């Protein structure tokens, strides 16, 4: 974990609604593991006191990339970032995904919603073997990196709410179709909206498979100090409040105690 000042080496649109920002961050790059995130300081937004968390999407040598979508005022301000700008980054943060070994029996099955594909691509690029990616989004603009996964040899199945790419519907549709005929045990790695994570988690629990879910919580400090990002976790029958930023963002499906109101 470092506070590192990095200069912007690339900042490009990805499709119509996303951007990729690449920073030279040798110290963060050296430590980063798939599933971890960075906490970006938005100096250009002078009335912002909070950093913004983004999953690590790629690490290439000294460089760290994130893939982001414009959601609100922070990500809107990020659009003005230019090549050569200095950005202050806190990271890498969080626990990261457990990396299955080359001889693990289960088949890695990644499930991504929108920008949730970012940490999963980093994961895929670090896995000694290939598997399946299920990617979903509202529309085809939210389906990202398909070619990159295919280039790594992954089998990609898609779903969009409006049917503009892949199956029309939720990503669970192609996932359930595959599960129905699957001949190998899956091990899930999922990142996306809560509803999706919960659905994947339920399938993992029901099937008795492992399911690693990357949770998305609004964050303050990002390092476990402020207790803003807590999630109820059950371990050995005991419920405790875990900090998504520090103890997560990755939790095993069985551990997550979803609130009744959560989708």
């Amino acid at each position, binding site marked *: 974990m470092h506070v590192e000042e990095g200069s912007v080496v690339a900042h490009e649109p990805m499709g119509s609604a996303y951007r990729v920002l690449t920073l030279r961050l040798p110290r963060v790059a050296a430590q980063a593991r798939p599933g971890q995130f960075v906490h970006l300081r938005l100096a250009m937004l002078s009335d912002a006191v*909070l950093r913004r968390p983004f999953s690590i999407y790629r690490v290439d040598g000294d460089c760290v990339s994130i893939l982001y979508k414009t959601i609100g005022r922070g990500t809107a301000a990020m659009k003005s970032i230019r090549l050569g700008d200095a950005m202050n980054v806190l990271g890498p943060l969080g626990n990261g995904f457990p990396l299955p070994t080359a001889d693990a029996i289960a088949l890695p099955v990644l499930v991504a919603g929108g920008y949730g594909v970012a940490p999963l691509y980093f994961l895929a690029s670090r896995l000694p073997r290939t598997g399946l990616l299920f990617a979903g989004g509202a529309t085809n603009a939210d389906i990202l990196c398909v070619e990159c996964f295919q280039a790594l040899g992954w089998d990609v199945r898609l779903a969009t709410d409006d049917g503009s790419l892949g199956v029309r519907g939720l990503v669970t549709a192609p996932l359930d179709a595959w599960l129905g005929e699957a001949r190998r045990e899956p091990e899930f790695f999922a990142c996306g909206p809560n509803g999706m994570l919960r659905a994947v988690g339920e399938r993992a629990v029901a099937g008795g498979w492992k399911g690693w879910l990357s949770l998305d919580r609004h964050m*303050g400090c990002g390092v476990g100090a*402020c207790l803003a990002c*807590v999630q109820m976790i059950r371990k050995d029958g005991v419920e405790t409040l875990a900090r998504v930023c520090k103890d997560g963002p990755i939790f095993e499906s069985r551990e997550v105690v979803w609130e009744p109101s959560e989708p």
Partner: protein
Amino acid sequence: MTTPQLGITLAGIRMKNPVMVASGTFGYGPEYADLVDLNRLGAIVVKGISLEPWGGNRTPRLVEVSGGLVNAIGLQNPGVQGFVAKYLPFLRHFDVPVIVNIWGKTAEEYAEVAARLDGTEGIAGLEINISCPNIKAGGSAFGTNLESTARVVGAVRRRTRLPIIPKLAPNVSDIAAFARCCVENGADALSLINSYPAMVIDIESRRPVLANVTGGLSGPAIHPIAVKLVYDAARAVKVPLIAIGGITQAREAIEFMIAGASAVAVGTANFTEPLTALEVVDGITRYLGAHGLASAGELVGTVRL
């Protein structure tokens, strides 16, 4: 020119410099230890501790606003025993005073927490949180009423020999009265201020953004309010003041000291930039040097009217 002396002794607590980290914004120490050299801090004030473990409020607990954030963590903590067992051993490895922020739902609970910490190795003082806006019982309710302020401070005083530092609420008309009340009931120093009662509503859902409905505003937004309160309190009492509210760089800390604070604590800015407290230390050092002041103490309360 010699290097300015930053060290201070506040309510008997010796600090290397007057820059502390504020309760609830720096965890219990380990969270930031990889980033911040804890030995360079004036003191660490840990997250509020109660008699029993406490779960805090539901999420969302925190929301950014213009120039600050509104939080309603709700004082989640492992309880006094959990703190002593889990975090104090870690903190003892460092050469930095640890001030424990305490709270309770009754004056007796406050006193009981104080009693349990009294004499515990590695604790330099107690900050009494009578001003948390985020719990229904206790908290701010105590700190905006002179009688209950007196009751809590007095009860704690009777059960500990540690220096006690009540932390005042900003949402009062007459901070001087509360400052005097605390001192009369045995306070060795005062912290001011806690976050300011506030609320944020999501206009799409028409629901309060925080699960707790309301929360406390902190950050740069409240700094000019805090300076006024520190200035008023400094003219009312003689005990040292720890100023808190919106520090992001040395400038705001120096403003507080000129207004009358002997020390300061960095809160929300730890989230923006974990190295803020250390930058403030360096900035104060430079400022003292540039202004020909031999020590941090020479700056305190020197506002020219």
